[in-house]
């Protein structure tokens, strides 16, 4: 398996490799800021609620957003 094949195309990896971010979490936060126009455009893309909620970008916004309750204590 070649681990480097997608590094250049992955925006989070690019931020890490360029030194703009020191950690994955920091890189993802920076990316989410940069990706806001893309995220807003997604809202109008015709995706269903389920497709939109499972889109990797939306998953990342939730991961870095306010915490939900753990499934085990719901």
């Amino acid at each position, binding site marked *: 398996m070649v681990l480097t094949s997608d590094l250049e195309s992955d925006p989070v990896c690019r931020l890490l490799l360029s030194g703009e971010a020191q950690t994955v979490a920091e890189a993802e936060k920076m990316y*989410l*800021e940069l990706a*806001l126009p893309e*995220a*807003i*455009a997604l*809202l*109008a893309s015709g995706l269903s*609620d*389920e497709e*939109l*909620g*499972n*889109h990797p970008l*939306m*998953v990342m*916004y*939730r991961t*870095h*957003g*306010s*915490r*939900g*309750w753990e499934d085990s204590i*719901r």
Partner: protein
Amino acid sequence: MTSAERLAEIVDALESVGLRCLVMGGHAVRYYGFERTTIDFDLHLGADGWDDLPSRLTQLSLTAGVELTEGNTWRPGAFRRFLIGRLPDGREEWLEFWRFNHLLAPFPELYSRRETGEYGGRKLSFLSLPDLIRSKETDREVDWQDIERLEEFLDARLFAAAMSDAANRTNALSSVRSRRGFERLLAEGWIRDAPLAASAIAAVSSPIPWAYLRPFVADAGAPPQEFRLEPLVEQKLRTVAGGSLAHISVVEIVRLQYKRLRKAADAADKQAIRAAQNS
């Protein structure tokens, strides 16, 4: 002596020379339940005693034998800091005072909303939790980490108040800012109570509760005037299924935009002060 006990000692000493204050900053964050380390003593003072603050501070028993040093400030008239000694590990111990904080209401109003509670072995007065959250909406990322937790605590308090008295439900809904708070209200069924959600959304003052409530209200007005949402975001909030992962995602987009706007406003305020000082 713990840093909480040291703070209690400082507030005692300040009151002994006629200085009334409210605790803000890291110690207030700890008081409300977020256990994190802090060595800063941040206090909000009234206008009384501001001009002769150094002479009053030199009267304090806790600075006896230590030469009081006033540090530089880039908000003259609003913020002052004094070196009062050194901690056992050698770090400097600073007392920081606000007379007027650009993010907050004037002191008398803050004082009227204060919360008094046990901390460091005595009763101290703190900024109210909503005021503390507002004071943290700066351009510093570390303050937003505090906000994440403080919002959860505020939502939990408002939920508890709403559980004990139904008259408080509108306030719990119109103030909700954390996902945990939202999920609690959803599980209780209150957000799906159309008249209740409609009265709550009419009372919101932040775009975050507005975004949480919007899918549950058929005919809502515009979001709070101060914060214009992107039309695509507003439109999506009208149609997305309330409580779905897609809905939560849109709320997080709104949260990020709100944070960006608040950070920019704070940075612009600092920039204006620097520009005025350099001109």
